[in-house]
Structures are given as C-alpha cells and as structure tokens.
C-alpha cells in the first residue's frame, strides 16, 4: 500500500508499432480504490495503453505500481506484484479445460478464490471438465474474469469485457465487474457507457494516443456536450436500474 498515493501511475508512455506512433506521452494516475475507466473512440490507444502498462509492448516512459517503479520489469514480474488481467480478446486457452484455465493462473502461495469465482459464475464449476474452446463467448468472458479474480490481486485490468456479448450476458459480466470492484481496484477499458456509469468513479479519456480528459466519471457522463466531443456518441446511457437480486443492471 502506498498510504494515500496513487495505486498506478503512467508517465509519458510512448509506443511505436510498425512505425506508427500509437501512444504519444500518455500520463495518468489511478487511485487505490474504486473503478477508473479508460475511455475513448475506437483506435485511440486504450488497449495499447493497457499492454504498455503490463510491458506487453515495447514502450518508453515510466510506470509505477503500488509505489514501485515497474518500468524495467518483465510482464510476468509485473503481474506477480498483484495484477489480474482480462484482455480484450479474453486470452482463453481453447485446448485446455475450464479447470485447467483456472489452475494455470494460480499463483503461489494462495489463497485462490475459487469460492468467489463459483459464486459469481456457477456455470464455470459445472463446466470445469469442458474444453474452453467449446464455451460460448459469454462463458469464455466469465472464465477470463474468473481467472483474473483467482488470486488476491491489488489491481484488476479489464479490457472491454462486454464487447460482442448478448445483452443477457452483458448483465452478468457487468454484475461480475461491479462485484469485483467491491474488493479490488479496477482499471476498466469499456465502450459500454451504461456499465461505466454504474461502476466507474474516475474516467481517463484518450484521443489519438494522448490523454485529453481526466476527472470523475459521473460528471463527464452527465455532460452531453463533453461526451459527444470526447467519445463521439450523442449522449451517455442512463443510469442502470436495479435487478431482482438487488443489484443494478447495465
């Protein structure tokens, strides 16, 4: 713990991919509680920012996590500091079973939070012997989120968890993200603004590889002109209603 300082700090991140300057000095901080949402139009560098934080792409700049400079560390060392990662493409190992997909994510020593995973996604327990490649898209997303929740992490990074999912599954995934956020800070890349409105306390908006806005998420989403200007949508989604379980829905 950093005692009130930011949990995550990105300073002047630059990424070049095949000659294109994708990130152009991305700088932001993330508090040690709640959900920080990384927003922006398609192709502005949100996923690249996440990969740069984790060292999955070559970058310059500086990344500080939990008070430690992790810039020079390899990805596996960064992650073992306490980061759970759900990539945009889910990163499920299709030839492995559901149980094996979870087991490979176990970090020593535990504890491993199978109880939480099975509470959120009981279907994963029922399908534990099934090859993950035969799961539906929604089930694969549940598995990816479950895998990130398995260890006692200090931060979850979740990249577009509701992308391409059916509305019913979006609700389940949104519930899971909200539930996870009760226990661990989340950096959420998301285009579904109703989910952002439901869970996010802070927002960082990217445009053309640069940070163009930081501030409270609700204030941003309530400002229709700023939403249109920064995100290119006519208006932010309304606040979600509560479902029958007493949780709100996306």
């Amino acid at each position, binding site marked *: 713990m950093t005692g009130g300082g930011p949990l995550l700090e990105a300073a002047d991140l630059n990424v070049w991919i095949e000659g294109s300057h994708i990130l152009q000095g991305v700088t932001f901080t993330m508090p040690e509680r709640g959900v920080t949402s990384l927003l922006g139009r398609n192709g502005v560098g949100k996923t690249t920012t996440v990969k740069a934080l*984790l060292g*999955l792409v070559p970058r310059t700049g500086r990344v500080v996590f939990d008070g430690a400079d992790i810039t020079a560390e*390899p*990805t*596996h*060392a960064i*992650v*073992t500091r306490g980061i759970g*990662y759900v*990539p945009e493409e889910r*990163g499920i*190992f*299709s*030839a*492995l079973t559901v149980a*094996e997909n979870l*087991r*490979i*994510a176990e*970090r020593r020593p535990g504890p491993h939070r199978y109880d939480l995973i099975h509470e959120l996604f009981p279907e994963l327990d029922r399908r534990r012997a099934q*090859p993950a*490649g*035969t799961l539906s898209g929604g089930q694969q997303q549940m598995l990816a989120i479950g*895998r990130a929740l398995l*260890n006692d992490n200090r931060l979850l990074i979740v990249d577009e968890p509701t992308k391409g999912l059916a509305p019913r599954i979006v609700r389940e995934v949104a519930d899971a993200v909200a539930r996870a956020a009760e226990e661990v800070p989340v950096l959420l890349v998301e285009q579904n603004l109703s989910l952002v409105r439901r869970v996010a306390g802070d927002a960082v908006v990217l445009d053309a590889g640069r940070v163009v806005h930081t501030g409270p998420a609700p204030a941003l989403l309530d400002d229709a002109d700023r939403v249109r200007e920064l995100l290119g949508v006519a208006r932010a989604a309304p606040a979600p209603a509560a479902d029958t379980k007493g949780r709100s829905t996306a």
Partner: protein
Amino acid sequence: MSTVVLLIVTGLGLGALYFLIASGLSLIFGLMDVLNFAHGAFLAIGAYGTWWAAGFLPGAGPDGPGFLLALTFGVAAGTLAATLVELCVIRPLYGRHREQILATVGLSLAVPALLQAIWGADPLTFPKPRAVRGTVDLLGAHIPKDRVLLILVAVALFTALWLFNSRTRYGLIVRAGVQDRAMVTALGIDVRRSFTLVFAIGGAAAALAGALGGLYYGVVTPTQGMSLLIFAFIVVVIGGTTSLTGCAIASVTVALVQQFANYYTVAGLGDIAVVIVLAVVLLTRQGGLAAKKSAERVA
C-alpha cells in the same frame, strides 16, 4: 507372412527412432516457435558421448550396467548441450526467426565438424550389449532385439511426455504456451523457464535417439544426426507441430512407408515415397494429421 511381420517390426523400430527425435522438435517448435536445426547436433553428442563413455569412462563399459552408465552419460551430455544452447544462443534471439535459423544451422554444421576433427569421419563401431544382440521369434519372423528395445523406449518416452503434459504444471504451461505465449506471461508465469526445460527435454530425447541409433545402425558417424533430422522434420510436418499423438502416428507412418517401399520396390525409393506422403498430407490436411483435433493438442 514372416517378411511382412519383420518389415512391420523393423519399421516400428525405425519409427521409434524418428519419434525420439521428432517429439523434441515438435515440443520446441510448438512452444517456442523455434525451428531447431541444431537438434541433430544433440543427437550426435548423445551418440558420441555414449560411445566415448562405454570405452573410456571409469565404471562404464560396452555391456550390462556399464552400458547403462555410458548411456546415461551420453544423454546427460546431450541434455547439457541443449540447455546451454537455449540459454546462450536461442534465448537472446527469441522472435528473430531468421537469426535463429542461421544460428542453429551453424551449430548443426559446427558440431559434426568438431566431432570429425576429434574422432575422424570414419564410422565408429558402436558397442552392442549382449542383451540386445540376436533376435526374437515373432510369427515366424526373426526380429532383431535392438528394434524391440527401440520400440519399448519410444513407448516409454511417449508415456512420460504424455504424463508430463497432462499431469504437471510445466506441462500445463507448455500446452497453454503453444497457443498463446504472451497470455501465459500475462498470468505471471516466467515462460522462459519452461522454454529451457522444454529444450532440455528435447535435447535429452535426441541424445537418447543418438545412442539408440548407434545400436540400430551399429556405428556412429558425425553426420548421422543430420540425415535422421531430415526425416524427423518430415514427421513433425506430417504429424502437426503441436501434437504428441500426431507426432507418434506420423513417425510410424513414415517409417513403415519407407520400409515397405524400400523392400517391395527399388532400394532408395522409400525416401521418395515418404516425400509423396508428405505432399499428400500437406495438400489434404494443412497443419498435419492432428490439425482438426485442436482440443487434443500436445496431449
């Protein structure tokens, strides 16, 4: 009938030899994306290490427990060489495929040249323990005992690799890494350790193949590894680059085709027949025999 039985069993023996080499190649290519042309060098080191130990290592010898010690020495030498190659040559070149190929091709030429410089180019008689001399009778055919030994060792290696892949954490990492290495890293796993382990396992299997190849051919030569490696690569392509089962099936297929074609047509036509099988598989099942069984890959 006895001829067919003999051809089948000797074919299985040759297939076993191919499997010992190709299984390591397949593991290394599947997980690490490395076309390891130096694999034949590990085979040669295993063969020469066993030959040298049988003659000169205190306690070792050409027969009985002494030969087992010599074999252990040869396999250990091949394993050590593979580990050093991974750490010193391959690791700095990950993701740089052209340089990897140049480096491993260089090693595949340098090691036989070194062996030739030390022990000459002439074939060296390989020791044959009494237990594997002579033949056993099977359905009227006189089967050389060394072929039976090769088959038993290959079955044992297949079982050991299957258990490694399906029952150990490293096996789990290898199976996942074959599909998505970056994601394995993003789970907090240092995949480089698995690379070194896989390279060492591949080197050990190749060195074992070198020693058993000495029994099979009765001699060792500096270039034995290179000629066997060509067929091992064909096996990997036919079997699929990530399937142990496919690798085993392809090893047997290639060897049987070779044996039968050589016997029933013109000697030497077996190699051409193997190339025809390779072409048919590539044209009809891209990705090899195991291409459509993704859920069973490396299992």
